[in-house]
């Protein structure tokens, strides 16, 4: 596929024109991504690929060199590393909760102390995630404390 980038005239707004013979599924997916800002994540389960919104994920956890995305009831594998996800995900919604966990702030129901300077986050799906002492300051800052 040929990609051409043209500079618009000063009075023109930015525009993407797709010139194609037929609008197949891949192209439709690409258009959807362009419209949504390509925020969806490619996740895997039983050799099937799924596309999910980051907002659907409660937390990401790295276990034995693999990264998993935990949704309300489903668990998917994701090929990105945690540090890559940390860069990609919306910074206002996701925080590092531990070396192996990235947590979605919007999915936290409540927080309680978990001894030793740690906190336990009770998620909206009933799961509990421990926030390490070293990341508590990041959480407090994110919440404006």
């Amino acid at each position, binding site marked *: 596929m040929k990609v051409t980038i043209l500079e618009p005239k000063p009075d023109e707004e930015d525009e993407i024109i797709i010139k194609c013979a037929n609008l197949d599924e891949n192209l439709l997916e690409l258009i959807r991504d362009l419209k949504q800002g390509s925020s969806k994540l490619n996740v895997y389960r039983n050799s099937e690929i799924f596309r999910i919104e980051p907002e659907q994920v409660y937390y990401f956890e790295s276990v034995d060199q693999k990264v998993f995305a935990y949704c309300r009831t489903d668990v998917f594998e994701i090929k990105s590393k945690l540090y890559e996800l940390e860069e990609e995900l919306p910074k206002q919604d996701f925080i590092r909760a531990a*070396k192996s966990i990235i947590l979605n702030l919007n999915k*936290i129901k*409540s927080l309680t*102390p*978990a*001894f*030793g300077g740690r*906190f336990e986050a009770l998620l909206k799906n009933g799961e509990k995630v421990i926030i390490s002492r070293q990341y508590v300051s990041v959480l407090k800052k994110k919440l*404006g404390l």
Partner: protein
Amino acid sequence: MERWIKRLQFMLGIFVKITTGVIVVTAVYISVFWGIKVDVKVALLWQILCVSALCTVGSILLPASEEEAQEISKKGMLIRMIVYFILVNIVVLGCGFCFQWFSPSDWKMVLGMEISIIGVFVAVTAASYFDDYRIAEKMNRRLKEREKRDSE
């Protein structure tokens, strides 16, 4: 290897804290039960180091690093702390008896020892828990405000 180094550093830190605590409690205890002018033997210093070392060995129950802490749930941590507290009790009372720090027949002395152990342990644990509880309450309020803002 790194895990062992972290464990040793953690235990060294615990040893220093316990030794400091035991010295303070011993000073208070001797002053109250034996009087401020009593002569103490050099052996007491070795006994204090011995008690601190034994209490430090028990700290193997507690996580030494963030990675270890991550694997322990809140309930698991509470259980470990209770077990550690019981262990500290046994060590201090056992050593106190062996080193003749108190007479088992004098209930006031035994009670004094127990109050000293509970006092130090509860004060340290409760102070940090309530401080964390206050922070958690603040964060919960902010989370609710955030949720309310997002839903509008």
